[in-house]
């Protein structure tokens, strides 16, 4: 694992401030860049004095802004999910995509689309919570029946296997009900379909999740020191873990229902954040949200650049960024001992 630097409070605030400014800039970049490049001044006008007759204003209001916001929120949610998972399990490889949670969410989404085609957006979001929950339960069941306990690496492998199984079943369902197009979007991860309704869903569900995350942040700091320490300090570990899992399910479910299975954000960001921010999860959780948002907004811009004018799934971009990091972690974690 990476070591950390102990900063003073002011420095931490400063770093977060810089991250916020960087995020605002990247959102501006995301809004102005696209099939038609729009000047930043026009963007500002479209927000401040919206004129429905101008097509550029329409594009900004209806397409670009919701997309940029959705990228920021999804990135933040995935990063916080990963942070909580890594903090609770003390497993450097824990993250929503590797543990199969995102595949689980996509799995129930396909089932809903196949059997209840008229389902509302909110219904889809709820379905993805349930699916995320199924995957978590399966992975932890495998863990508890394992002969030599659940080492970090084994947990990751179990997650990958269960994710593969769930996504294979999803493919079968989507082939049978001719949903391949919708599915390929969800499995590759993409933000092209976002609108203001997606933002509302993300804000409502994610707001609850982020609130929970902040409430338990102090307890997670203690838990990350080890279960014995946590018990010794009078914490109810089971309660905190239950709350943590619920938080992860809400945040991951919301993110997947909007953007599909975007991998590796929840793996990389927690490591980077801990490296910069130290060990206190009251700082780590908000900062990881900022960094996650920044990463996904920028990745989304890259996804549009790589093969312009066509879109590349943003999940492919985050994978390419995340894989070297994952390999570094895989080598570092001692190989399952």
């Amino acid at each position: 694992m990476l070591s950390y630097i102990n900063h003073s409070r002011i420095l931490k605030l400063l770093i977060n401030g810089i991250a916020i400014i960087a995020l605002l800039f990247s959102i501006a970049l995301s809004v102005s860049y696209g099939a038609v490049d729009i000047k930043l001044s026009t963007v500002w006008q479209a927000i401040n004095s919206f004129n429905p007759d101008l097509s550029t204003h329409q594009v900004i209001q209806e397409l670009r802004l919701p997309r940029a916001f959705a990228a920021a929120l999804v990135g933040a949610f995935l990063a916080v999910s990963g942070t909580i998972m890594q903090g609770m399990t003390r497993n450097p490889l824990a993250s929503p995509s590797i543990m199969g949670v995102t595949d689980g969410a996509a799995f129930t989404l396909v089932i809903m689309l196949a059997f209840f085609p008229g389902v509302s957006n909110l219904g889809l979001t709820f379905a993805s919570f349930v699916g995320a929950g199924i995957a978590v339960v399966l992975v932890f069941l495998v863990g508890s029946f394992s002969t030599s306990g659940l080492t970090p690496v084994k947990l990751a492998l179990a997650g990958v296997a269960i994710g593969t199984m769930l996504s294979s079943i999803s493919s079968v369902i989507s082939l049978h009900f001719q949903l391949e197009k919708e599915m390929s979007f969800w499995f590759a991860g993409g933000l092209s379909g976002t609108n203001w309704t997606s933002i509302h869903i993300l804000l409502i569900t994610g707001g609850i999740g982020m609130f929970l995350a902040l409430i338990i942040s102090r307890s997670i700091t203690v838990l990350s020191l080890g279960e014995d320490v946590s018990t010794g300090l009078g914490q109810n570990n089971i309660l905190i873990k239950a709350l943590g899992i619920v938080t992860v399910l809400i945040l991951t479910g919301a993110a997947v229902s909007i953007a599909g299975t975007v991998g590796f954000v929840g793996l990389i960001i927690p490591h980077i954040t801990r490296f910069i921010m130290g060990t206190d999860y009251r700082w780590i959780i908000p900062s990881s949200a900022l960094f996650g948002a920044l990463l996904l907004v920028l990745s989304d811009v890259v996804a549009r650049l790589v093969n312009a004018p066509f879109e590349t799934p943003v999940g492919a971009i985050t994978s390419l960024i995340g894989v070297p990091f994952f390999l570094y972690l895989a080598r570092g974690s001692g190989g399952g001992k």
Partner: protein
Amino acid sequence: MAKPQAIKQKRYVSILILLIALLIMMFFISLSTGVIPISPSDVVKTLFNFGTEKQELVLFEFRLPGIILALLIGAGLAVSGVILQGVTQNDLADPGILGINTGAGLAVVLFIYFFQDTLSMTSSISAFIMPIFALIGAVFAAFLIYTLAWKNGVNPIRLILVGIGVNAGFSAALIIFQLKMDPQDFRQATVWLAGDIWSANWNFVLALLPWILFLIPYTLHKAHGLNVLNLGDDVAAGLGSKVEHERRLLLILAVALAGACVAAGGGIAFLGLVVPHITRRIVGPTHQRIIPISTLIGALLLMMADVIGKNVLAPTEIPVGIVVAILSTPYFVYLLMKTK
């Protein structure tokens, strides 16, 4: 001492005969089922040239190449898995999980991407060139995984984990290149990558056949080396084996088999994982026996998966790679739970 040996030999021969019988049965089931059912007796008639024109067309142009391809790919991937598990002494090794298949797939997609104007994907020339590209990709992937997993030796679990990472990276690169293709090539590449063998025609069969016919017997010839390596490096060196040399040669065999199979049938994961385990349960640890038996079991399983994929949700056809994944992941999880 001689007696149990003789009993074992007898048992081995009877298993061999049983499997061949099952394979022939499966072959006929597979030929007679599908969107247009043809009764087994009609299948036999048609094979001997007494069928109707329509039956001949369905059997010879559509079903037979696909089934023979399934047979060859199943055999090839199974033996590839046997070698990988033997050489790395790793119960969880499989060309699909390790990312060797995706490496081969990426090379093939790059090939289609750069030569899409000059060659059509199903034309006879590209059917023969594709395995070579796939082989280059597979070798590159294997080299990358082995190097990255090396840290004072190769720990089994770390190898798999690195494989998964490399796999994810290749898949991402694949998606990016696929999207740059024109829609028709894109569709073909997508279906092919999911592990699809029905678009098969005789060209693919002819392209894969020499690889399988050469590589599997050669592996069998090298079976003794596998046995020795399985005893651990020290013992192997003590017995006079050039450990690293043997290991590399066998790895190249495994990678070549996987690459050739991917070129013909797309990415079919987990088959090379499951078959060696089943085989070892039946015939024990001797590779002279494991290799023939797993060749047969691999072929049998892939034909079965193919029949299931074609019929379970008919008229929807499920790519055989997906069927194999759904059937085998529980077994992978079971093995994982047992591994220390």
